[in-house]
């Protein structure tokens, strides 16, 4: 095996555009990779959380005595034990570390316990007696809108607000609450340093913001807390907010012992935020030739009990409410409501997913009303470089190959029209449920657009440090590898820019380097990659300058084809460069939502082919083809991995993944009832990467993580509509929505 690995790496070189093997691949395949769940420390205690059984209640009293009486319990803490600010939140610190007078959602943490083992900790938490006065929960987001219970309202007004079209299409759409469902649940270990400070190792997408939240909420000083990147089993947005982080530090500081917590699956479903459910009202106006004249939309996303990132998700939903189309007259009103539903926040696609389903359905309906081919309609209105984003008026300055995406998608071969009779290929599972004669086939298209990086004037940056030693190049960063392959691509960038063949990525904690920003918004390849490129480039220049050379490789510094200084001599010195990369500055929106709001954009398109048994309402997604604007594919294998994985989550959103919330309570917080697609549900995927360099990312790369999910769900919904003739104005599409109409 070893020889094979080496041969492969040798063949590809591990440079930009190659697909070298993942450095963490073998440990993961052997079960040796250390995840947060696997951490241990001497004399470690286990933590557990008591959560609210009500969506809304007043806490009348808490009796800790029964928990303290359990043998092996070291601490039972409530809101009264939280020093400092006592609250946290990504946009506003509105969420209590532990609930004080009121609980505002089902599953809100009320008490935390540390005990000698996990079972004892959970039993002790369950033994706490909390008396609640149950209050009426506010669970209808439209009622919350009427009562002005909101986190943010958005108003976008651009162009003529009175114009009407020759053809007008109205629609109302809903998107259900999806969960990120990363396979690794929330887990972490906090170790007190003996001097009032603490080291935190916990599942995260953004250790510097965890650090900031722990410091502020517990009244510590910045240098008392170190947040360490640690191995995590997926993220998809679920780890952008803190959850157990502050509890772990609180318990560790209180007991002066290391404390570990691992959420079980059902706790994970309440312990992190979800994708916002959305309700969307649309009106599209066009002239008889199919030119989009005006789009009016109202977008409601329900933020649940606490703010999390609702403001930014709502803004994104509104900014991309029209989709990747030119339109000079736009009216969008948005509201992010505050209710007693589970808090919602970041999930892959971040607001763009919800509106994509709505604007793409509208485009199909508009095409039908115009008696026009839906792709011709899209092509006619497609955004391009130099156009204005229809909502914000921002001129697009980087390549935006929307037309190429459409043309590529159409040119991709369609699957065989024959409906397979293989039991593994028919709707209705693997039984005798459906036969080929019961099946109708449908094809649907959808296009999507999303921003890359953080927007609205946020100071978005990433720092990376590159060292050159006898072992080769080392990239130091606090950026989180969530599985996407950042550890591979940063090493590729360092190799390519520095000129050496050996490069590794080393995660360091918050005390050792400045922020890399969040592993979200499709941003790390561009931002941390940009910082790595800049640090590597500067380091190379310094070394060349120091040794009067014109080239650097594994052998050392060269000048005019002659080796002037061998590497061994160079690495006797200390060589490191630290770079901070910022993307082009953005602005906050004005009162009409106008401005240079975003740093960059990416587009993609999806074509879905589905087989449906209309009598039962069962769907099998046969195939999803895609063309995606990637700028430059730094690691084509990783890009494809992001595309296939994102499409699978889009298919899940389209046909099966939904958290069912009734009266504020999640009814299916487990993997038996929250259905994730299996390998038998996975469609065939063909992906075409459209490389048009010109973005500010390293080597012209764009972020690739989110576009695969934005329009894939909408394409599947369109295909189901095509197969059945049903309206399909809600995703996930439930079988009864097809069969009972």
């Amino acid at each position: 095996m070893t020889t094979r690995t080496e041969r492969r790496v040798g063949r590809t070189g591990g440079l930009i555009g190659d697909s070298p093997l993942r450095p963490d691949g073998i440990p993961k395949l052997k079960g040796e990779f250390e995840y947060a769940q696997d951490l241990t420390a001497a004399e470690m205690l286990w933590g557990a959380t008591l959560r609210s059984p009500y969506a809304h209640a007043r806490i009348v009293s808490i009796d800790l005595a029964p928990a303290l009486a359990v043998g092996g319990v070291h601490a039972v803490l409530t809101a009264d034990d939280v020093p400092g600010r006592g609250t946290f939140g990504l946009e506003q610190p509105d969420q209590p570390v532990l609930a004080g007078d009121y609980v505002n959602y089902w599953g809100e943490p009320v008490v935390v316990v540390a005990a000698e083992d996990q079972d004892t900790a959970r039993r002790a938490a369950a033994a706490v007696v909390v008396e609640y006065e149950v209050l009426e929960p506010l669970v209808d987001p439209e009622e919350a809108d009427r009562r002005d219970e909101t986190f943010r309202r958005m108003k976008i007004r651009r162009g003529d607000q009175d114009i009407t079209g020759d053809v007008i299409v109205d629609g109302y759409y809903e998107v259900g609450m999806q969960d990120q469902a990363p396979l690794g649940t929330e887990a972490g270990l906090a170790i007190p340093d003996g001097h009032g400070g603490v080291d935190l190792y916990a599942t995260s997408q953004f250790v510097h913001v965890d650090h900031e939240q722990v410091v502020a909420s517990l009244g510590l000083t910045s240098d008392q807390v170190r947040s360490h990147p640690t191995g995590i089993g997926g993220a998809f947005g679920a780890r952008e907010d803190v959850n157990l982080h502050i509890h772990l530090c609180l318990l560790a500081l209180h007991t002066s012992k290391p404390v570990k917590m691992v959420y079980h699956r059902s706790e994970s479903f309440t312990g992190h935020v979800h994708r916002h459910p959305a309700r969307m009202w649309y009106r599209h106006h066009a002239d008889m030739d199919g030119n989009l004249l005006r789009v009016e939309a109202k977008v409601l996303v329900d933020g649940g009990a606490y703010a999390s990132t609702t403001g930014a998700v709502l803004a994104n939903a509104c900014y991309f409410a029209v989709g990747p189309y030119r339109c000079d007259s736009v009216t969008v009103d948005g509201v992010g409501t505050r209710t007693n539903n589970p808090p919602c926040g970041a999930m892959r696609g971040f607001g763009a997913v919800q509106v994509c389903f709505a604007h793409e359905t509208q485009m199909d309906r508009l095409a039908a009303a115009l008696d026009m081919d839906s792709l011709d309609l899209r092509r006619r209105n497609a955004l391009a470089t130099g156009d204005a984003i229809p909502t914000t008026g921002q001129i697009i300055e980087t390549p935006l190959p929307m037309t190429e995406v459409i043309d590529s998608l159409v040119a991709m071969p369609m699957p065989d029209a024959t409906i397979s009779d293989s039991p593994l290929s028919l709707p209705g599972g693997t039984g005798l449920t459906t036969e080929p004669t019961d099946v109708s086939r449908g094809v649907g298209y959808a296009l999507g657009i999303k921003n890359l990086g953080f927007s609205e004037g946020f100071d978005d940056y990433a720092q990376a440090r590159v060292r050159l030693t006898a072992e080769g190049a080392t990239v130091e960063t606090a950026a989180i590898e969530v599985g996407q392959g950042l550890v591979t691509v940063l090493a590729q960038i360092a190799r390519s820019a520095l000129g050496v063949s050996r490069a590794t990525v080393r995660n360091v904690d918050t005390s050792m380097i400045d922020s890399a920003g969040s592993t979200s918004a499709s941003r790390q390849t561009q931002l941390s990659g940009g910082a790595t490129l800049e640090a590597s480039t500067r380091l190379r220049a310094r070394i060349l300058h120091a040794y009067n050379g014109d080239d650097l490789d594994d052998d050392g510094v060269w000048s005019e084809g002659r080796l002037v200084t061998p590497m061994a001599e160079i690495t006797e010195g200390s060589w490191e460069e630290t770079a901070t990369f910022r993307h082009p500055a953005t602005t906050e929106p004005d009162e009409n939502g106008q401005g240079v709001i975003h740093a960059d954009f990416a587009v993609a398109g999806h074509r879905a082919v589905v087989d449906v048994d209309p009598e039962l309402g069962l769907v099998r997604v046969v195939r999803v083809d895609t063309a995606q604007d990637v700028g430059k594919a730094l690691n084509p294998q990783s890009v494809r991995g992001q595309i296939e994985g994102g499409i699978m989550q889009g298919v899940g959103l389209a046909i099966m993944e939904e958290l069912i919330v009734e009266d504020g309570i999640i009814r299916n917080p487990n993997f038996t009832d929250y259905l994730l697609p299996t390998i038998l549900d996975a469609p065939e995927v063909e992906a075409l990467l459209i490389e048009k360099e010109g973005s500010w990312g390293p080597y012209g790369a764009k972020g690739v993580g989110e576009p695969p999910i934005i329009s894939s769900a909408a394409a599947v919904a369109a295909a189901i509509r095509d197969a059945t003739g049903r309206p399909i104005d809600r995703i996930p599409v439930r079988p009864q929505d097809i069969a009972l109409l």
Partner: protein
Amino acid sequence: MSFMIAGSLEEALTALAAGARPVAGGTDLVVGARQGKAPLPTSLVAIDRLAELTQIEPTDGGIRIGASVTHARLLTDPTIVSDYTALADAAALVGSPSTRNVGTLGGNVMNASPAMDTGAPLMVLGAVAEVQSERGSRTVDLSDLWTGPGQTSAKVDELCVAIDLPSRPARSGSAYVRLEYRRAMEIAVVGAAASVTLADDGTISDGSVALSAVAPTIIEVDGVAELMAGHLPDAVGAAIAAAVAEAAEPISDLRASDSYRRHTVGVMAARAVDAAARRAAGEEISVPVNRAIGVGASR
């Protein structure tokens, strides 16, 4: 908690008489304990290694399937696949390969879930459960055994040791059809099993239909034999669907509304009758997963 691995059936029955609870793998207990749900029994006896419970053997009037026979074995056993195909259809749909390796027929029957997949096939195939205690052995009709969701009429000291199935008539076939949203690791949204026997002229001479997940227990639909008798199989679908929709008492839950269940269980039953009749007529309709993975034939 005391735990004993029974070395013989007698040992197991003695332990049950002393108040132990039988486990075969202990799946439900492990999950329940972790979730802090049901109170834990103080005494357990493991029955999964009793060789006498793992046999599939012919009897005078049919076949006897030991209670500890796994789903994985049912779906590949040649006699089950060829003669009691509905049971193989059902076993093949349970969970995933790993859950089929541990899940047992006796475990299914005694769990008495209204959504169990093997229940409706057993009913249309005329199965009876053989239960034993220190007090003796008796056989129970499944319709008498299942009294409600998760409830049976068996006494606490009684152990289900086997399921007995009668021989199949000539020109008969059976099938189980299930509705599921996901293509693996699913629980029936609704399910229907059918058994059909054909006369020489190709008309139906006898038949039965049973349903999963539309009532507090698995139910057999009354009057199906009369409804089908004398008709060609392709002429009975609508009548079956109507009779089934009438018999079903579905509830609305997370997975489906009552009206969707009532609608689809009729379609499922009609399709089960169709597949059973075609198998009875000699057409090869493999247990679907087996066909995909290339195992066995069926009728």
